[in-house]
């Protein structure tokens, strides 16, 4: 489900089934050299999480990306997000990111780090199949966590 008003009504009535939160972590790098790759990573991450939501709509709640600047203190951010997530009744929380710095932050569990693939030059069908390949790598991680 998406984090929108309509889906929240359904979420509130089906909380025992929707037990997994997915939080995309998105780095905003506006330096001239980082701008384009930051935008590409954002596109990739949002396409992937949208596909994931379509597959697992009835079990995950997809949050809007948590966006932070490139100099942000990841450790402090991790503590703040995980504290907030504990206020909701999720059994599993997944964080998805393309930002490599999260690999050295161990305050968060279940951080799925994926290298961003630039998709801007792909035509629609090719992009679709690339993203589905990416999704197929992520799905088993969810199934494993659930079982």
């Amino acid at each position, binding site marked *: 489900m998406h984090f929108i008003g309509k889906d929240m009504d359904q979420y509130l009535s089906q909380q025992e*089934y929707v037990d997994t939160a997915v939080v995309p972590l998105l780095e905003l790098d506006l330096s001239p050299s980082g701008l384009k790759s930051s935008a590409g990573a954002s596109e990739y991450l949002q396409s992937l999480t949208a596909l994931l939501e379509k597959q697992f709509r009835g079990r995950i709640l997809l949050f809007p990306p948590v966006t932070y600047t490139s100099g942000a203190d990841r450790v402090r951010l991790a503590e703040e997000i995980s504290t907030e997530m504990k206020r909701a009744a999720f059994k599993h929380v997944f964080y998805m990111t393309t930002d490599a710095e999260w690999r050295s932050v161990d305050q968060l569990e279940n951080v799925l780090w994926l290298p961003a693939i630039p998709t801007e030059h792909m035509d629609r069908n090719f992009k679709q199949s690339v993203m589905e390949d990416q999704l197929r790598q992520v799905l088993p991680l969810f199934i494993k966590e659930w079982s």
Partner: protein
Amino acid sequence: MSNNRVSRRQFLGYTLTGVGGFMAAGMLMPMVRFAVDPVLQQKGGGDFVLTDQRAEDVTEEPVRVDFTFEQTDAWYVSEVTNSAWVYRDGDILIALSPVCKHLGCTVNWAGDPEKPNQFFCPCHAGRYEKNGLNVPGTPPLGPLDQYEVEEQDGYVAIGAIKLNTLV
């Protein structure tokens, strides 16, 4: 010079009738147009979307067929790709929606290795028979929806969604 000359009075009469007629038509036309508007509205549903799946390649084993159409969400127009599970039953094509009737996850054919002849929903282990009938005892409460489907120039075309008519 012709014999039946138009008098000034007649000329003014004709001219005023003509101009008045145009003015009356100018007012009445939009009103009539508004009144009959529901008849002129184009119907959105019922269109078939051509896929790139060859109809003759469809067997009794369900295959996933993707189809793309434009969706307007308020002011935001986007291309949406949906899929359907298409298989052949005798001579007729059958297309089932992959959306689980429990909470809307995407179901897969033979997604559970232990049940190779059923649709499986990975979210809460819902299962469906090949015709879309939900297996009792699993979370889904109804059968999978069905798509209108037809063959166009040798390719599968997917139409409107409807309630399952097979079970």
